[in-house]
């Protein structure tokens, strides 16, 4: 397989992004996560802050309307621009890692897609979030719940499948079981096996 696209869906605090970054490094391919925001910003003339504001955000249904495929919601338009951007990259034959953005569904038509979902035990996720964001246990717990709720709403609005449903992904893995490094090693082996097929 000359092209391979690794999509990484993740629960907040599961180290999904760190795992994706390390995989990109090991396979020496670009990663589209925050970089996607700058790419979209450059393409549209918006500031990265403006794109960030509406990034992976579910729209407020009561304030939005869709007519013949057009939507007044900025969140919808930013999401569609990201999907189009990823589709163009995939079509060009480039190999890359993408974090979130419903990529496991939006890029499903490409045989080179390897879709992963990273989850984690709540205690581990809380510990990680407390450390990174310097939050109390209680705040970290509610922060995780808030972030995951947002991701779930965003995903389920743009896709027919449910966020985190193992049937949507090639592999779902709990990063708390092996620890982050071992999880990365295991995923690397899996991806190499897929590429060599």
């Amino acid at each position: 397989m000359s092209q391979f696209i690794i999509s990484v869906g993740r629960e907040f605090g599961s180290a999904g992004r760190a795992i994706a970054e390390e995989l990109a490094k090991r396979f020496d391919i670009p990663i589209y996560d925050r970089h996607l925001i700058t790419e979209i910003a450059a393409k549209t003339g918006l500031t990265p802050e403006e794109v960030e504001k509406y990034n992976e955000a579910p729209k407020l249904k009561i304030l939005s309307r869709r007519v013949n495929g057009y939507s007044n919601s900025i969140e919808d338009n930013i999401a569609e621009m990201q999907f189009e951007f990823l589709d163009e990259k995939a079509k060009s034959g480039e190999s890359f890692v993408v974090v979130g953005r419903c990529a496991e569904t939006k890029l499903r038509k490409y045989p080179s897609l390897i879709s992963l979902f990273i989850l984690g035990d709540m205690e581990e996720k809380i510990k990680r979030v407390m450390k990174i964001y310097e939050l109390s246990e209680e705040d970290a717990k509610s922060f995780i719940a808030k972030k995951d709720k947002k991701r779930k709403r965003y995903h389920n609005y743009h896709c027919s499948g449910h966020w985190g449903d193992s049937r949507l992904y090639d592999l779902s893995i709990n990063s708390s079981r092996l620890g982050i490094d071992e999880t990365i090693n295991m995923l690397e082996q899996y991806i190499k096996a897929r590429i060599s097929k």
Partner: protein
Amino acid sequence: MTAAQIFAVIIFVAMFIMIVMDKIERHYVTLGSGILTLTVVFGICLHDGKAIWNTLALKGFATKDFWYQVTESESKGINWATILFIAGMMVMVEGMAKAGFFRWLCMKIAYLVKCKTIPIFITFMIMSAVLSMFIDSITVIMFLAAVTIELAQLLKFNPVPMILAEIFCANLGGSATMCGDPPNIIVGTSLGFSFFDFLTNTGLVAGISLVVSVIFFYFVFRKELVSGHGSNVDMSKFPKPSEAITNKTDFAISSVIFGIAVILLITHAVTHLTVATIGLFIAAITLITSGKHALELLKKVDYKTLVFFIGLFIVVGGLEETGILELIADFIEKISGGNVMLMIAIILWVSAIASAFVDNIPFAATMVPVIQSLAETSGLSLNTLAWALSIGTDIGGSATPIGASANVVGTSVAAKNGHPIGWGKYCKKLAPATIIVLAISNVYIIVRYL
């Protein structure tokens, strides 16, 4: 309340909520609600086969009045004339778009005003209003917004004010004629009004409002529109209008068909041809002249919207047959205390406020039987109430980004090109303009009709 009334209301409210929720496509929602109305309200609750037949209104096709109408008549149930007319215009518009008509027109006008920002701003507002008098506002804004963004990049101006003004003027232009906005087609075909009736009543106030709006937007937006290029514009870098034409023969044919449609609509009170006949005729000549591309044009017709209308008319038919709409009419009469000025104001402003947040098509379809009933009980002229309803629903939709289809399309085209327009930015400029036009309309109705 009877069981039939309760079910009719539940189905209607559930339909409205589901349209707003946008989880299921709106044509499935109205069609499903329509089928429920026919089975539960008419079948199970009322055991009334005749009501089902009346609501389906299929026998209308066999009557001469449906195609050639000498005397004005009112229709009930599914308004097939509206559906046929909209379908016909959809076919014509597809033909025009394919030939490059709209892009050519936009570019031609930009060239005529020498690609200067402020003259483009003013002429595009007027063009938006005039085109929307005959063509659906979605198509008008789709092309106008795209060309505006292209010109903005070349001339280095901010396209957002221009797109906002175009959206507003498209909705305003739509209110001027019977075929400009779906609520007007529903009001016109349901109550037997002609194109000319609209033009001389809502058209007049739309004309006055257009002048006021152009002045208003000029003063509100002029600072944001100042071109980086000043007065020296190098027009050689611009795409030529003729480049927009994909095929000269198709372009000439589609322009002639559009001209015929306009003439037929303007003269239909004299020729007695109904809008259903005009829609069918226009579709037929578009398809015949497009030859081997006919199937392609037919495939592009927005069948979802047509199905949406059919379902909607059935649900409203349920409310009408069960007498719910009469209850609403009685309620309006009661709270206005028989004061006609207040009654007009309620119809105008409530229609406007409702249309600013919910789809104005179901609202207008629901309100037509209400104003009929209100006219009967209060003695107020049905025409006056109809103009208030049309203006309210058409203009009110401009106030928010979700109030009308043109707003959604315009803001979406802008966002996809790097100019997101949120609620704040939108409402800050267009809500005051909407209130100004509604106030003008309110005064106009009182002075002219009361």
